[in-house]
């Protein structure tokens, strides 16, 4: 009953796997985005932009004042330096003149940068050593040479410049854009009110990603809305994320298909298991029936055998002729019953041997004496020999008797009209029984097949020899269970079977 359970368990497990796999394949996670209030968000961005613009204007007004002052104090270098250093971001101060022979003057502020800054100039031609330059348009700078003017020179490919012109003298300030941006960033970072304006998940950060203010837990996904805050010196970002909801959805055709397949497999498993259980039950009933019938045959068989013995001793010449035939047939029937019973016990897994003290030579002789009339009738002269002691040892006498009978039965069936030998050897280690006949023998390819149950060599069936095909199979099985072997030895003529079982001495001698 193990196989049906195993089949059912495997197929049910397969059904569960198919269904679970189907559920996994059919499942999809659908993300829904819930848009946040964009108006307040935009208002916040506008506030930030206004603040940045205010800072920018404040800085510009400082530049205008400083530039105007510097146009007056160009002769001395210390005063302009001190003045320039009060404002963030000034890298160089350059004085340029309207139609004057005065040379253009440049004053570097702070640490010199790694790469030399290009010098603002009005000179179209190079004078002195070659150096990087920014050529400026004199018409633009001195468009109001009699008055005052100022403004930005913020062009691609040029550093950020601011100029202030007064009465034909222009001061051009070369500015460090990043330094001014950092100063503004620092100012924005310190703006405490901004933190309360963020509702989250929001972030206010520089264009390089440095976070200035944040609210809520920021998702790893890119933000849904980015509002840039832009100035001349750099830009910042107000980024925010919408709320998201994730819910599971299933692809119904896939789900239904996998469930249907799972149910089919489970039903198939149940059906297959039921069939196997039914088949096993029928097989068990068949074996059990054979067992019961054979069992019931034993008592009448015993009565027949006992009464044959009684008659034989009381009726003249009973041991010969037709009476002897009855005895032989009764013996054959007994062996048949015994073989069928042994086989059915083996099939049911209940065949076990029981060792008891006995003299194996006597057991073999007793079986041989039962066969002698039948062997003589078929013209088989059997020679019985023995080597070694005939002491008592411990083994299953019934099994030895059954093996001997099955071997002699083969001689009787397959090797008529020829001499045969039954030789036994008993020593300290083994009991060996060898039965050799002079029949047709067994071809090499059939040597193993003869020990298989129900196997019979074809030509012998057609030759009219009867038998169940169980004898040698049972004999070998019994020999193995006795801890020994039964083999077909190669012989020049006929068949030679050798039984070898280990000897276990008893203490009865």
């Amino acid at each position, binding site marked *: 009953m193990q196989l049906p359970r195993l089949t059912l368990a495997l197929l049910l497990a397969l059904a569960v796997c198919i269904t679970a796999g189907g559920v996994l394949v059919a499942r999809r996670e659908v993300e829904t985005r819930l848009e946040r209030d964009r108006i307040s968000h935009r208002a916040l961005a506008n506030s930030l932009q206004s603040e940045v613009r205010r800072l920018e204007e404040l800085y510009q007004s400082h530049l205008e004042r400083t530039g105007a002052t510097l146009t007056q104090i160009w002769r001395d270098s210390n005063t302009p330096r001190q003045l320039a250093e009060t404002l963030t971001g000034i890298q160089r101060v350059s004085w340029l003149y309207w139609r004057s022979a005065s040379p253009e003057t440049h004053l570097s502020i702070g640490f010199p940068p790694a790469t030399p800054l290009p010098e603002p100039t009005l000179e179209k031609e190079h004078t002195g050593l070659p150096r990087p330059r920014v050529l400026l348009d004199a018409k633009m700078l001195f468009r109001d040479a009699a008055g005052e003017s100022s403004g930005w020179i913020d062009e691609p490919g040029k550093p950020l410049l601011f100029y202030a012109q007064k009465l034909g003298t222009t001061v051009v300030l070369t500015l460090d854009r990043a330094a001014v941006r950092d100063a503004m960033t620092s100012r924005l970072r310190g703006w405490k009110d901004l933190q309360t304006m963020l509702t989250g998940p929001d972030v206010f950060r520089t264009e390089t990603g440095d976070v200035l203010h944040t609210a809520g837990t920021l998702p790893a996904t890119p933000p849904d809305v980015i509002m840039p805050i832009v100035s001349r010196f750099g830009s910042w970002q107000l980024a925010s994320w919408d709320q998201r909801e994730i819910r599971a959805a299933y692809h119904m055709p896939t789900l239904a298909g996998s469930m249907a397949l799972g149910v089919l497999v489970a039903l198939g498993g149940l059906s297959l298991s039921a069939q196997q259980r039914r088949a096993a039950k029928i097989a068990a009933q068949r074996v059990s029936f054979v067992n019961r019938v054979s*069992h*019931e045959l*034993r*008592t009448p*068989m*015993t*009565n*027949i*055998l*006992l*009464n*044959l*013995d*009684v008659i034989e*001793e*009381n009726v*003249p010449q009973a041991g010969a002729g037709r009476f002897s035939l009855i005895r032989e047939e009764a013996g054959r029937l*007994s062996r048949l*019953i015994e073989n069928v*019973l042994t086989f059915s*016990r083996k099939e049911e897994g*209940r*065949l*076990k*041997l*029981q060792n*008891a*003290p*006995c*003299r194996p*030579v*006597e057991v073999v002789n*007793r079986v041989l*004496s*039962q066969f002698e009339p039948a062997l003589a009738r078929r013209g088989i002269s059997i020679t019985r020999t023995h080597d070694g002691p*005939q002491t008592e040892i411990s083994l299953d006498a*019934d099994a030895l008797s059954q093996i001997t009978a099955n071997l002699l039965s083969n001689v009787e069936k397959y090797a008529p009209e020829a001499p045969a030998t039954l030789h036994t050897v008993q020593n300290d280690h083994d009991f060996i029984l060898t039965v050799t006949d002079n029949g047709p023998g067994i071809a090499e390819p059939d040597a193993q097949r003869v020990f298989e149950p129900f196997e019979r060599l074809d030509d012998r069936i057609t030759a009219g020899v009867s038998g169940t095909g169980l004898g040698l199979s049972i004999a070998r099985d019994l020999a193995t269970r006795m801890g020994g072997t039964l083999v077909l030895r190669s012989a020049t003529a006929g068949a030679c079977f050798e039984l070898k079982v280990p000897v276990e001495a008893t203490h*009865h001698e």
Partner: protein
Amino acid sequence: MTLLLADDDPITLDSLAACLQPEGFRVLLAKDGTEALALWQKHQPDLLCLDIMMPGVDGYEVCRRVRAADAQVPVLFLSAKSEEIDVVVGLRLGADDFVRKPFGKHELIARIHGALRRVSGAKKASATFTLGPLRVFPAELRAQRDDTAPIDLTPREVSILQLLHDRAGQALSRDVFLDVCWGLDYMPESRTLDQHIAKLRKKIEREPEEIIETIRGVGYRWRGSASAR
């Protein structure tokens, strides 16, 4: 030698009796366990042959009760049940052997001898007598030649050898044998004696008339020898 046979199949019981009585065994027949226990208590037989499946008290129970009272008496199970568990239960209850049906007379007698031999082996020492090269152990139902395996004998054969031994040198008529060895309860034909003698000679002699000599027109004789006494 008294045997108690218990089997619920009357034909088996009758067949067993028919096989064992001519061999000189005295048999007590019981058709169930209760009767077997009663007969055992009354007659204290030398050996019990029990079927397992019997109405009322089964063979196992009979064996258990007998063993509780007598640890020595040989008990054999004769049964159509032959599963390992049946044999194991039987042997654990103290049975000496388990004879599976079907069996014939000779196998049964051999098994009875085996059981008796083991018991007598345990008891040791019993009276013996010799007939030439043959030493006979009457209580154990066996004889022994110096260089061979033990020879199993039936009670009848033992009594024939005993008679020949006791009246060594005398020619004994068939009637004497029948009177002494068969007694009054059985009236065999004289041919029965010849059959027994023939079987006995086959068992114990190596040469014709080595031990038992035929006296034509009279009967049989053992010449006797100085060493036999």
